[in-house]
């Protein structure tokens, strides 16, 4: 069934808290599968060109089309959620150990992280505060004594 590699990719996200190594190979597989589904679509359409309004052909094309959409959704969600987690990590652990983490990231993600760091740093400077510091007050702060 189409979309199984894509589903496994998303499951990998679900079963991990932060960031596992970037799964380049799965994304590659998904891309190849999507391309071959596209070929099936074009061959089906060209084969049944005059019967395109028949439900038999429509159902087939719909199956292929949904599979392409599914692959796309899973891959995009994978990429998007990883970026989201990276940002969350940056806020939780400010002095992030860039070198070690970046082993798990793709090149583009590393680029994203460094740009995000810079952006955040500029903003914090302009505000004058380190916004990623912990925000809750010390326990004894408001004691009257």
């Amino acid at each position, binding site marked *: *069934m189409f*979309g199984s590699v894509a*589903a496994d990719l*998303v*499951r990998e*996200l*679900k079963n*991990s*808290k*932060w*960031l*596992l190594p970037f799964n380049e190979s799965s994304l590659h597989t998904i891309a190849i599968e999507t391309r071959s589904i596209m*070929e*099936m679509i074009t*061959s*089906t359409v060209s084969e*049944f060109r005059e019967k395109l309004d028949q*439900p*038999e*052909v*429509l*159902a*087939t094309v*719909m*199956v292929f089309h*949904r*599979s392409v959409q*599914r692959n796309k*959704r*899973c891959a*995009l*969600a994978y990429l*998007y*959620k990883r970026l989201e987690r990276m940002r969350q*990590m940056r*806020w*939780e*652990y*400010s*002095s*992030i*150990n860039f070198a*070690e*983490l970046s082993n*798990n990231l793709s090149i583009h993600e590393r680029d994203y992280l460094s740009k995000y760091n810079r952006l955040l740093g500029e903003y914090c400077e302009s505000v004058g505060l*380190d916004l*990623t*510091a*912990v*925000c*809750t*007050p*010390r*326990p*004894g702060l408001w004691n009257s004594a």
Partner: protein
Amino acid sequence: MAGTDRDYYDIDDILMAEENIVCTFNVAAKRLGFLDQSADSSHRDVVDGEEDNLSDDGEDEEEEEEEEEVTESNGLERQVAGDLPVDTKVELPYWLAETLARRKFVMMQLPRHYNAKVRNDLRAGPVAVNLSDRSAYFFELGFRLSALLIDDELAEILRKGYAARCWRVVDSAGWEGKVKGLMVAMKKLDSRERHLYMLVTNLINAYGKWKERCAERIGSARKHRKRPYEESTRHYHATRRP
């Protein structure tokens, strides 16, 4: 979990749509013969209508004769697979089944874990029903299916059952023992309820800490644990002593 359940990027939404639904094709779809897994891949042999791979839902509606009569023996390549005969039963993931069903290319059957027995159990004693071995996305999928199949009774039962179970989850969270207690308590819950359970547990723990004046101090952002990006399976949230 996102509040809006139609979020494109939501992981749980995506995984919920992976659940398999048994569908009956209303049209003889061209070239989709490979969907039918009970046939062998060459589509040449006539299989005696065995449907071991497909799950039944307890209703004796399957007709076993139409299974394999007409397949074009067009060779072994996937691209030139044979047609899918009408009334073939196939297990399709929900993301595919829903679209096909809306267009009436396919008829969906309610999965086995929404059948009459489970409904009665949910009606009578919702808290005791073990959902984790039925489906990880019992309620979400159930609501979607009940809307699609216009099954108001199912929606009603799910709603009431979910409400009752949520009350129990919120009540009992935070009172269980540490890891072992969690395991026992969460055994019957589906994934959404588990998430709720963990939320409430953390909430209660945080409240307890606040009462004991263990809240975080102001300071620079917490120094990260040695390797924060590695998975820690024991702790849902990394907690750090002040």
